[in-house]
């Protein structure tokens, strides 16, 4: 299973390296979300500083949806998904591989967004380990849930409008917990931040396990 | 004054790096052009309809 996962992850990442879609489209999109939310919340620095963690995670969430759509689209060609199924690769391995690829891209994205938020909203992360841990754990959850729901909506014609509708409510706990932990990291308040980690970790574990178990049956059913 | 130095360094450095990347890209595409040209010349058919083929492994 692990070797298959590496195989699939490598394939997805190599496709990304060739086409550079995430680099040229998803990252600018995320920065755009930052800018638009800044427009919405107003020119004064204080409300923006207060809203910075939330803005960060909204941008991450929207970018996750884009990344999932891209990940699913890679295999939407004629017969590609059937070929993948028939190739004998362990479906759990496919799940892990795709989740790993998306997760890696999301991590890179978060680094860029972190710089953007620091720069545009005039905030500074004071408890760095908290922010990094929260991002890592949240990313696992986002990637796993994302790949799962991506597979769910994969064959459908209305995939592009349905996927956000399906997956964003599911990711809401990550938004909540992520925002709170980052708020704590910005304030320098480590203890309240760790409380919210207790929501992020189970979320990640649950969707990781569910994904490994359900991805295969999901592929059969689709 | 640090900011000023950083600004000048950033401006000059970025333009220098960009110019270098442009030069490298041009060289890469010029090479690709030459290679593609060579393949086209070799691949053209003879008057009698056969083709001067490249032996696999041997590049002109």
């Amino acid at each position, binding site marked *: 299973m692990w070797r298959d996962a590496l195989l699939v992850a490598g394939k997805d990442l190599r496709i990304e390296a060739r086409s550079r879609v995430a680099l040229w489209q998803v990252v600018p999109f995320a920065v755009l979300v930052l800018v638009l939310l800044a427009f919405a919340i107003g020119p004064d620095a204080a409300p923006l500083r207060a809203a910075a963690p939330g803005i960060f995670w909204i941008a991450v969430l929207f970018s996750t949806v884009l990344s999932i759509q891209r990940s699913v689209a890679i295999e939407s060609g004629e017969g590609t998904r059937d070929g993948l199924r028939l190739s004998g690769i362990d479906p759990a391995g496919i799940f892990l591989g795709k989740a790993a690829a998306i997760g890696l891209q999301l991590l890179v994205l978060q680094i860029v967004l972190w710089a953007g938020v620091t720069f545009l909203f005039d905030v500074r992360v004071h408890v760095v380990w908290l922010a990094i841990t929260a991002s890592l754990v949240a990313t696992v959850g986002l990637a796993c849930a994302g790949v799962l729901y991506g597979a769910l909506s994969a064959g459908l014609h209305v995939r592009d409008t349905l996927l956000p509708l399906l997956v964003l409510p599911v990711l809401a706990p990550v938004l909540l917990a992520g925002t709170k932990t980052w708020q704590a990291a910005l304030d320098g308040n480590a203890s309240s931040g760790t409380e919210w980690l207790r929501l992020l970790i189970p979320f990640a574990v649950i969707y990781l396990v569910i994904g490994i178990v359900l991805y295969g049956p999901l592929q059969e059913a689709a | *004054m640090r*900011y*000023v130095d950083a*600004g000048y360094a950033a401006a000059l450095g970025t333009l220098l790096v*960009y110019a270098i990347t442009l030069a490298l890209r041009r060289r890469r595409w010029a090479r690709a052009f030459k290679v593609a040209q060579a393949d086209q010349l070799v691949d053209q*058919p003879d008057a009698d309809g056969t083709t001067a083929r490249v032996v696999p492994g041997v590049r002109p």
Partner: protein
Amino acid sequence: MTATGQTARPIPRAPAQSPSPSALSAAAAGRSPRWLSVVGLLGVIALGFTVWLGLWITPPDAVQGNLARLLYIHPPIATVALYWAGGVALVGSLLYLWPRTRSLFWDRLAASAVEVGAVFAALTLVTGSLWGRPAWGVWWTWDARLTSTALLLLLEIGYLALRRVPADPAVRARRCAVAAILVAIDVPIVHFSVDWWNTLHQGGTFLDPGFKLHAHGSMLWTFLLGFIAFSLIFVWLLGMRYRIEVLQDHVGDQELEVSLAERWDEGAGLAGAGAAVGVGVGTAPPPPSGSAP
């Protein structure tokens, strides 16, 4: 072994459709044209003098002190990004869409201008922030000029992303030309709306709306020299980027011809041993990892 050193005879193709390869290679693969190199050299020299004057010779400003030295490079860079690059991109796109003047030259020029313009736009933001941090205490503020420049950069990245989508050159040109025009329309609109929203960015240090110049002596000369230097550099970079654009399109054409030739041969029943002809068998860009000629 180079293309010119090969031993196979260059046999003219029976259906003669492609332009003479030698003419293209001379134009496209050769070194930069002389005038472009001269422009580049002059630009670099002027830039050197600007830096020398700006950092050492000129006196510190009465109000801003040494910080004002950034204003020898920040406004010129911004001007290049906004007006020179944006102008060339807009004009090029318009001229491409206008049937009378349609030519891929304008499309390629516009695309090159957008890329170089994006670099300058990013530099504008960087130098502006480095000025703003000591001057206002913050790296960033959401005033009209900064926000519009940031949005311009994002719009240009969007254009460049659009350009990378593989397509027939004429289709891509039309698509990108329209995109460029939309960008050009959008930036003033964004600027005005953000202006109403708030203003903090100071009015021009040197220039009034009435165009009265405030600075005097060596500061003024350095400022003007900065404008000239960065403008020349822009032209030089634009020229270099344009040539890459031309080369890319020609490589694409050549690879297409090679693929067509092979399909033609296969159709004539000559498939078989020795069918593997090196590079460019119908694959799209990127180019092969360079084998040294």
